[in-house]
């Protein structure tokens, strides 16, 4: 390879975030196109899909190929890049008629709730009409082309990556606007008739030609950077400039002339009818069909197979057995032992990612319930779970104990302790569930289950009824009672009255039991689960339960204190107190008593008191109503923390992936967590008043609390971390 090319290319790398974004846009477009291809097949044929995806591919080519890298030493490479961004990509994107597919492809709540008010605003409609007016778009395009090719500005972009991005932004945006009236993006009206686009294009072509000619025929190099750049493949700076001018001239003109010719011919073939004055089309809203994961190809049949859950549980049981065996018999250096790696790095990381992407998949494949089911074939449980324990208080207490013990005894660093924990867990499950009927352990005891129950409130999938009218005529209620061939829901969740994912183990017993096959895995409306006040089967009103509020708040504050425990500053602080008190156990106990109980209780009391005063409601309404809104923020902290371990470990296997993306991902997740929490708080406050000012006042203390937690999460993310359980350089 040419040494100059080698010097340029060796440090060059692909930006995966750009690729990810392009793929995401393609997915949204394809999703919308699939709908429209059925409904408006004459407008949305396969050609539209091809050109739009090609447009995205061209952007990828321009930005993420060596073309950009060579642009710093070769003007013609830079010119090709600009040509792709100015002429090819926008033209292809707009030929794909992207407006409707992209809107239809977005989740309905984004389109309707988030974008709806903006799309309907008169001011924005007027602004939109103004910026795609051909006069504006032509002037904007020509100005962008001319100004950025002036040596002063071109040099600025060459010498500053930030200005280079601004230059690309100007070109791309100006081009999108320029091509908008030419293509006549649908659904929209043409401001000028189609034939007027012929002079519009030719005039723009003249500007392009003038610039190209100047570059091609000049006897001096316009841009000093290229004059002093090392010569690639022996091409002199002047030859390079002339070639760049040629690229701008010939392909640049062709891109203008072909559409001009097509539009000209079309104008000659039909009589002029003036600009379209038809009323804006009102698109009939299409009732969204009930999407069901169980009805998707491949995944659906696999999930519904009678042996699917058992197989998943057996796999997890085998892993648990391996972890336990290695924990007892293997090396006691945590990173070298399955008990130090699998549960504390992989399992936790994958479990939170599964919650984010799907739902409570851990409980679905729970290894603890499989031996329990086997044991119940020998021993039939005789007792009902005591009424006074039918709440989440016991589980909340166990969760506090677990979080404290995690810091106090560091099981992540002691494989044998981890193995004992697993054995203890199995023993507890077997004891409780061979004595008590139903899924008493899952519902009232299991701290891991509570973690998943609470956080599955923000999962995108839920088990629910496909068609409610079928349930109205059902007399057998197999989903909860079971039948001869299949047990019903052991957690006493009656499908027609089930609300969200709380207490649902995703065991699919109800799916198997329903004789009408009317239970599926459906999309969940996460925000509704957090703000609803309706009673749900088996759980009552979440917004009225002190035990659930306590459980949620322990998990929320637990997320922060657990993550903070691995930061260097907190550890140094703990060591200082250790020296002072003489016992690390006392330090951890004090830290968790303060961070998990006393400080949260005080903060929640202040927020609740403020809300009581402004909304004139009870303590229960104030605290239990707002507590669930903090689930997204807490979950985002758990996700950032656990995925940090998982991805850092992945990077230790594949360092080429780099690690800069991990904090970005964590911050993005935390941002989303904060925003969903703020939105849910606003919705809860809206229950008490319709006046925006009052809603703001009611939600204000909770907003401040959420902001404080978010700030602390940012602090945690940027602290030096002790990567527990990992061998790090």
């Amino acid at each position: 390879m040419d040494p100059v090319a080698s010097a340029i290319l060796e440090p060059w790398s692909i930006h995966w975030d750009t690729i990810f974004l392009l793929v995401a846009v393609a997915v949204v477009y394809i999703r919308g196109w699939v709908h429209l291809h059925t409904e408006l097949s004459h407008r949305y044929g396969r050609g539209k899909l091809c050109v739009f995806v090609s447009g995205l591919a061209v952007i990828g080519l321009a930005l993420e190929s060596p073309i950009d890298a060579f642009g710093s030493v070769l003007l013609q490479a830079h010119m090709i890049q600009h040509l792709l961004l100015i002429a090819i990509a926008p033209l292809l994107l707009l030929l794909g008629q992207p407006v409707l597919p992209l809107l239809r492809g977005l989740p309905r709540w984004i389109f309707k709730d988030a974008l709806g008010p903006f799309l309907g605003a008169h001011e924005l409609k007027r602004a939109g009409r103004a910026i795609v007016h051909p006069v504006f778009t032509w002037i904007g395009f020509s100005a962008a082309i001319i100004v950025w090719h002036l040596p002063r500005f071109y040099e600025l972009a060459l010498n500053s990556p930030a200005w280079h991005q601004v230059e690309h932004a100007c070109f791309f945006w100006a081009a999108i606007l320029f091509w908008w009236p030419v293509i006549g993006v649908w659904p929209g009206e043409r401001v000028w008739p189609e034939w007027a686009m012929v002079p519009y294009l030719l005039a723009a072509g003249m500007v392009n030609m003038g610039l190209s000619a100047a570059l091609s025929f000049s006897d001096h190099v316009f841009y000093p950077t290229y004059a002093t750049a090392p010569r690639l493949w022996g091409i002199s700076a002047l030859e390079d400039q002339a070639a760049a001018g040629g690229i701008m001239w010939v392909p640049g003109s062709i891109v203008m002339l072909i559409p001009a010719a097509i539009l000209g011919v079309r104008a000659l073939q039909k009589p002029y009818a003036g600009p379209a004055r038809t009323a804006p089309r009102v698109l009939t809203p299409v009732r969204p069909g009930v999407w069901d994961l169980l009805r998707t190809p491949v995944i659906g049949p696999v999930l519904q197979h009678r042996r699917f859950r058992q197989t998943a549980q057996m796999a997890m049981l085998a892993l648990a057995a391996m972890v336990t065996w290695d924990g007892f018999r293997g090396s006691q250096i945590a990173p070298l032992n399955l008990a130090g790696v699998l549960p504390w790095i992989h399992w936790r990381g994958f479990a939170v990612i599964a919650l984010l992407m799907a739902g409570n998949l851990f409980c679905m494949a729970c290894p603890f319930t499989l031996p329990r089911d086997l044991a119940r074939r020998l021993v039939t449980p005789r007792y009902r779970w005591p009424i006074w324990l039918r709440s989440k208080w016991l589980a909340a207490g166990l969760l506090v104990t677990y979080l404290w013990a995690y810091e106090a005894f560091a099981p992540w660093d002691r494989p044998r302790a981890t193995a004992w924990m697993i054995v203890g867990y199995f023993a507890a499950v077997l004891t409780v569930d061979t004595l008590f009927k139903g899924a008493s352990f899952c519902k009232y005891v299991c701290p891991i289950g509570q973690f998943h129950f609470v956080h599955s409130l923000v999962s995108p999938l839920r088990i629910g009824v496909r068609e409610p009218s079928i349930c109205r005529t059902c007399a057998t209620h197999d989903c909860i009672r079971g039948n001869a061939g299949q047990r019903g829901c052991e957690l006493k969740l009656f499908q027609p009255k089930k609300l969200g994912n709380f207490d649902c183990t995703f065991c699919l017993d109800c799916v198997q039991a329903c004789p009408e096959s009317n239970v599926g895995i459906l999309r969940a409306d996460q925000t509704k689960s957090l703000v609803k006040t309706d009673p749900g089967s088996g759980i009552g009103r979440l917004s009225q339960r002190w035990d659930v509020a306590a459980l949620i708040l322990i998990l929320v504050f637990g997320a922060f204190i657990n993550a903070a425990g691995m930061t260097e500053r907190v550890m140094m602080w703990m060591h200082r107190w250790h020296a002072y008190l003489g016992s690390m156990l006392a330090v951890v106990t004090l830290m968790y008593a303060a961070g998990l109980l006393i400080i949260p209780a005080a903060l929640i009391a202040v927020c609740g008191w403020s809300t009581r005063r402004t909304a004139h409601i009870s303590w229960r309404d104030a605290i239990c109503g707002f507590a669930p809104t903090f689930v997204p923020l807490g979950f985002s902290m758990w996700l950032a923390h656990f995925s940090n371990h998982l991805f850092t470990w992945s990077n230790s296997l594949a360092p080429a992936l780099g690690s800069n993306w991990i904090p970005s991902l964590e911050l993005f997740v935390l941002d989303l967590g904060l925003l969903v929490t703020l939105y849910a708080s606003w919705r809860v406050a809206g229950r008490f008043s319709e006046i925006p000012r009052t809603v703001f006042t009611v939600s204000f203390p909770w907003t401040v609390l959420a902001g404080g937690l978010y700030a602390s999460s940012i602090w945690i993310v940027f602290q030096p971390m002790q990567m527990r359980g990992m061998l790090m350089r």
Partner: protein
Amino acid sequence: MRQRLAIMTVIALIQASAFADGAAVQFRIPSGELNVTLFASPRPIAAGVIELSLLVQDKNGTELALGTDASMVLRGPSGSTVSASVIRRPAGLYEASVAFDRPGKWEVTVKLERNGEQYAIGGNIDVAPRPSKASSYAGYFAFPPIAVVLFVVRETLLHRRSKG
């Protein structure tokens, strides 16, 4: 018309990440029979570890000047001197990783020896301050306030519509 704004928002998201990089030419200086070009990456050059690549060509800049020994000395803005360990690469380049510990103008002296003749070529590299974490992740910090402002606008529009 409303859809236009939506589509432009999506396209803006695509464009927002419009950047890519490679090595940037820092200086290209002829010296006698040789022509020396210094590349650096990543861009922009900020305090921290920077990969430097040195290309040594003949005076016309068309052929590699093979058989050259190269070394590099860098003097920081505080006057401290760093000797870079230069490695010869198969492609005919010389490479060095240099830790620029502080921002400012760094003087780079490239010493070359070829056929018994010695050359010393000097140039400057402007090193920007190391970006703070806050500025590196500014977009993530700006996202929540922007979303909140947009939400307030949305609520105002809804409120106005419900009154109208």
